[in-house]
């Protein structure tokens, strides 16, 4: 009993993701991340053209647009994953709580711990389920002992809605799970390092409808605890899970606003055409 209580205490100290706590650090209305006049080039080709956008803590933001419109590229700029592409070059200004993430003093390792990412294809490491979740806490030294690590693993899996399915087989390989479970494992893995922002790059495009519904449900539950940005091909999905929607076309941000407005009453002709299926 005593142990249980201790574990709960430590959970509070590690996971400062309670809506109440996070609300204090970023009052609603103050954007969590801001991007101003961002341009991205791949070699000579310009992939993103002058995009400015704010991401809020209390809403899920969806990026929609036809293939090749730059929405994933822009998403990858937000935790500097584009650094891994040698020919990619970025200008403009992206800030996380006011700190320029491309400033020389910004440590990319710290940045990515604060801005987590979930990929299009589930990519669990070829390790046990436990080690997959414990990976981030271990490299960032978030747990001081085995007990604390156990607790992080359990609470992350619980938040990702996977705990009841895997609690008896934490030592099985993460790659042995089904596609939907793997993706939730990846979300749990991202949650485990207690990020402030979670970027999701078409997280459901490789999943069946039932697994997709579970992920969408999970996004609903995580809303408010993390600033969530989701890139999706699927407009219905954007309408279901997001409160704000950004429509990208040919590397430019055409329209950004409340999801309900974008889908019912878009300001731009292009957005209307895309929403109504004129092209895409």
């Amino acid at each position, binding site marked *: 009993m005593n142990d249980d209580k201790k574990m709960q205490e430590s959970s509070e100290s590690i996971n400062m993701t309670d809506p109440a706590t996070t609300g204090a650090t970023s009052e609603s209305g103050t954007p969590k991340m801001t991007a101003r006049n961002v341009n991205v080039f791949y070699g000579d080709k310009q992939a993103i053209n002058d995009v400015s956008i704010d991401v809020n803590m209390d809403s899920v933001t969806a990026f929609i647009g036809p293939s090749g419109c730059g929405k994933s590229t822009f998403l990858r700029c937000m*935790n500097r*994953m584009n650094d*891994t592409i*040698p020919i990619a070059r970025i200008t403009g200004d992206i800030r996380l709580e006011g700190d320029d993430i491309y400033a020389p003093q910004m440590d990319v*390792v*710290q*940045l*990515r*711990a604060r801005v*987590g*990412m979930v*990929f299009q*294809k589930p*990519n*669990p*490491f*070829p*390790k046990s389920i436990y080690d997959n979740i414990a*990976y*981030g806490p271990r*490299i*960032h030294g978030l747990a001081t002992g085995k007990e604390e690590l156990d607790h992080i693993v359990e609470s992350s899996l619980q938040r990702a809605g996977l705990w009841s399915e895997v609690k008896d087989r934490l030592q099985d390989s993460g*790659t042995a799970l089904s596609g939907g479970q793997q993706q939730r494992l*990846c979300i749990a*893995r*991202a949650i485990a*390092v207690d990020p402030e922002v979670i970027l999701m790059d078409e997280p459901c495009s490789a999943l069946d409808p039932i697994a997709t519904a579970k992920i969408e449900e999970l996004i609903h539950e995580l809303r408010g605890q993390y600033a969530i940005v989701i890139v999706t091909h699927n407009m219905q999905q954007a309408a279901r899970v997001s409160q704000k929607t950004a429509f990208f076309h040919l590397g430019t941000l055409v329209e950004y606003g409340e999801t309900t407005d974008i889908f019912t009453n878009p300001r731009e002709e292009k957005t209307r055409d895309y929403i109504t299926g004129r092209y895409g």
Partner: protein
Amino acid sequence: MTSTTLLFLVIGLGLVAWFFGRLKAAGLHTRGKGSRSVLHSLPNYHGWYVALWAIVPATIFMMVWSFVSPSLITDAALNSPAAAQLPQGGFARGAILSEARAIAYGHQVNAFNPLSQSMVTPYREAISYYQMIGAVAALLMVFACGVYAWLRIKPDLRARTKIERVTMMVLLLASLIAIVTTVGIFLSLVFETARFFSMVSPIDFLFGTEWNPKAVAGPRGETGFGAIPLFWGTVFIGAIIAMIVAIPLGLMSAIYLTQYAPAKFRSWMKPILEVLAGVPTVVYGYFAALTVAPALRDFAVSIGITSASSESALAAGVVMGIMIIPFVSSMADDSIAAVPSSMRDGSLAMGATHSETIKKVLIPAALPGVVGGVLLAVSRAIGETMIVVMAAGLAANMTANPFSSVTTVTTQIVQLLTGDQEFDSPKTLAAFALGLVLFIVTLLLNLIALRVVKKYREAYE
């Protein structure tokens, strides 16, 4: 007419047959409905069809005939009146006959034995007689089979299908030759080894600790064939010292090349590393013997190991390790590159640094491939000969001192089989037993390595 000219004649006739076959097919080549030809196959295929029919049966006949005719010739020569003077049976008779045959074929000019000279004429007659029969039969076959095939040319003859089948058979034959040769080598090793083990007990050989094959005394109960020192020396050089050098260096260079190197550097460095694999092993051998070994001995002496030999396990092992680096590196390179990049991105997106990602995600994921590569490298190292012959020495020491001289299985095989030897002494046959052990070990290593690599590949595709 010699068999070579006959062969060329048959091939020439085959070309003529090709021409006629094609001609006939081209004559049949009229337009049917629409633009489609009435011929099932193009005229060329019909040409090949006739040509193959003309050449192949006749060639097979000639091959069979060349095996059968010598005994027919000998029989005919012995039935001649001149053969009556020959001694009945025994060594002399055989010698005379073979001498006569050699003169008759023109391999030899003068006879030592006048009796052989008298046998030359009957031999010559028999030879020309049977050669004539063979040639006529072969040419008849060319004509008969060629005409048969030519007559079969009709618009609906599926010549193309048949030619495709022949092509397939030729390719199959080509691939079988390698396999059959390997099986043949293996069988010869097994038979010679069995002869060896009839003279020396397998237990003494496999578990004996004294290797001194020169001490052979009698036909039974020999000692000095204990191969353990050789096995130890092989493992010590090829699997221990060489791998201590090759595994870290190969792995680290693979990591650098796949993960850190700029594309331009990689495009230079990889081919250079692969060239290293193409350096003849004899070059490594004298590098080991003339440069590395003396340097190591001097070093050993300078740190107080006065017993250091000029031929040392360390010199051979280190150079062999360097030779193996490209293998380990390119296998590791392939398996690291085969780890999906989503894995790497996943780890980086968690805030892991580059080296943490490599250490904790890429290497573990690539490990089976790396292990497979190392096993292949070991199997190559223990079969390697030139370096150890030149640098490891001949003394069969059982020692873990890297500065002393040891010997390996391959070195001893070279020792046993160079120079004059008789092929029924256990000393020579021991080489086959050693070869068989080496063959089995490398085969097993390769099998395990390929299985490991394959299993790993399945996991990601």
